[in-house]
C-alpha cells in the first residue's frame, strides 16, 4: 500500500520542529527565508549562552568536589569514637529554619533575575538585598550551631564523624559566604554600571551559583541531618 508515487519525501517530514537545520525544508513560498537554519549553521552561540554553559560546567565540578565530602561523611557516619552521634547533636527544628531561609533566598534570587529581565533597577536591588539578608540569616544560624557544638566538646577534633560533619557543612557555609560577598559586589556593580551586557552575564552566573548552593543544601539536610539524626 505504498503511495509514494508523486509526493516528494521532504513534504512527508515535519518542517524541522526543533530548528536543528537538518531537514531539507525551506519554507513554503521559496523566498529563501523560511525556517531559519539550525544553530550549527548560524555561527557560534551568543556570549551569554557560552558564559552560562561554562559556569554550569564549573558548578558541576564543584558538585563533584562536594560528592567527595559527602562520600567521606557517609563512610564515617558511625565512626563516633565513643563521642556524641548525630542523634544527640542535631536540632532538626533549627535545620528546618535554615532550610526555609535558604529556599526563600533562592526564590528571591529568582525574582531578582525576573526583575533584571524586566530591566527594573529598583526591584533587582530589592530582591538581591532580600536574598542577601536571608543568606546572612542562614549563615548566622549555622555559625551559632557550630559554636554551640564546639562549646559542648563536640568540635571537629572529637571524632571522625564530627570531622566529616564540619568539613561538609562548613564547606557549604564557606560557599554561602563567598556567594554573599559576590552578591554585594554585584549590587554595587549594578548600582554603578547599570545593566550592561557583561553585568547581565555576571548576574546570570551569580543566579546559577546561588541556586546550586540550595541544591547542595537539599542533599546536605537530607543525608547529613535527617538520615544522620534518625540512624
Amino acid at each position, binding site marked *: 500500500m505504498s503511495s509514494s508515487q508523486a509526493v516528494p519525501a521532504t513534504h512527508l517530514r515535519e518542517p524541522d520542529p526543533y530548528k536543528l537545520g537538518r531537514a531539507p525544508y525551506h519554507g513554503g513560498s521559496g523566498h529563501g527565508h523560511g525556517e531559519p537554519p539550525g544553530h550549527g549553521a548560524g555561527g557560534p552561540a551568543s556570549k551569554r549562552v557560552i558564559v552560562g554553559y561554562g559556569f554550569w560546567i564549573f558548578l558541576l565540578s564543584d558538585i*563533584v568536589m562536594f560528592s567527595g565530602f559527602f562520600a567521606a561523611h557517609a563512610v564515617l557516619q558511625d565512626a563516633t569514637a565513643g563521642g556524641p552521634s548525630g542523634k544527640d547533636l542535631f536540632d532538626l527544628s533549627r535545620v528546618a529554619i535554615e532550610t526555609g531561609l535558604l529556599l526563600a533566598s533562592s526564590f528571591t534570587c529568582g525574582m531578582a533575575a525576573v526583575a533584571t529581565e524586566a530591566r527594573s533597577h529598583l526591584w533587582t536591588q530589592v530582591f538581591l538585598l532580600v536574598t542577601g539578608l536571608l543568606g546572612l540569616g542562614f549563615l548566622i544560624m549555622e555559625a551559632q550551631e557550630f559554636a554551640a557544638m564546639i562549646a559542648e566538646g563536640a568540635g571537629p577534633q572529637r571524632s571522625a564523624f564530627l570531622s566529616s560533619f564540619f568539613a561538609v557543612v562548613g564547606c557549604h557555609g564557606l560557599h554561602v559566604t563567598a556567594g554573599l560577598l559576590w552578591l554585594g559586589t554585584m549590587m554595587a556593580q549594578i548600582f554603578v554600571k547599570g545593566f550592561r551586557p557583561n553585568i547581565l552575564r555576571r548576574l546570570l552566573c551569580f543566579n546559577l551559583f546561588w541556586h546550586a548552593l540550595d541544591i547542595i543544601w537539599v542533599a546536605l539536610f537530607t543525608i547529613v541531618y535527617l538520615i544522620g539524626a534518625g540512624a
Partner: protein
Amino acid sequence: MSADTNHDSESGDVAPGVEGTSIRAGVQGYLIGLGLAVLLTAASFYTAGSGWIWGPGIPVALVVLAIAQIGVHLAFFLHITTAPDNTNNVLALAFGVLIVALVVGGSIWIMGHVNHNMMPMQEMLQMQR
C-alpha cells in the same frame, strides 16, 4: 555592545538560568518551583520526624524525596530543560551525576565491604597478646 544584546534577544538559545521573556511567566515558574520545593521539604522533615513509614525504609524515602526536590530545583530555578538548545547543559549534568554516583556509591559500597571483612576489635586485641 548593543549588537550583543540584540543577538541575545533574537536567538532562541537558552543558557541555564536564563529567563523567559514575560515577567508573569517568569514569576509563575519560580512560584511553582517554590511551592513544590516547600512541599517536598516539608514531606522530608515530616517523614524523618514521625513514624508513619516503616523505620528502615525512612532513609530510602528521604533520598527519593531529596532527588525529587533536586529535580524541581533544576527544572524551575536553574531552567534545565529538555529543549534541543539545552542539550549541552543536560549532557554536562548527566556526566556530573555519573561522577557523583560513582564517588558516593562506590565509597559506600567499598567501605561497607571493608568494614564487614575487618577483624573484630576483640580478636585483634587477643592476637596482639
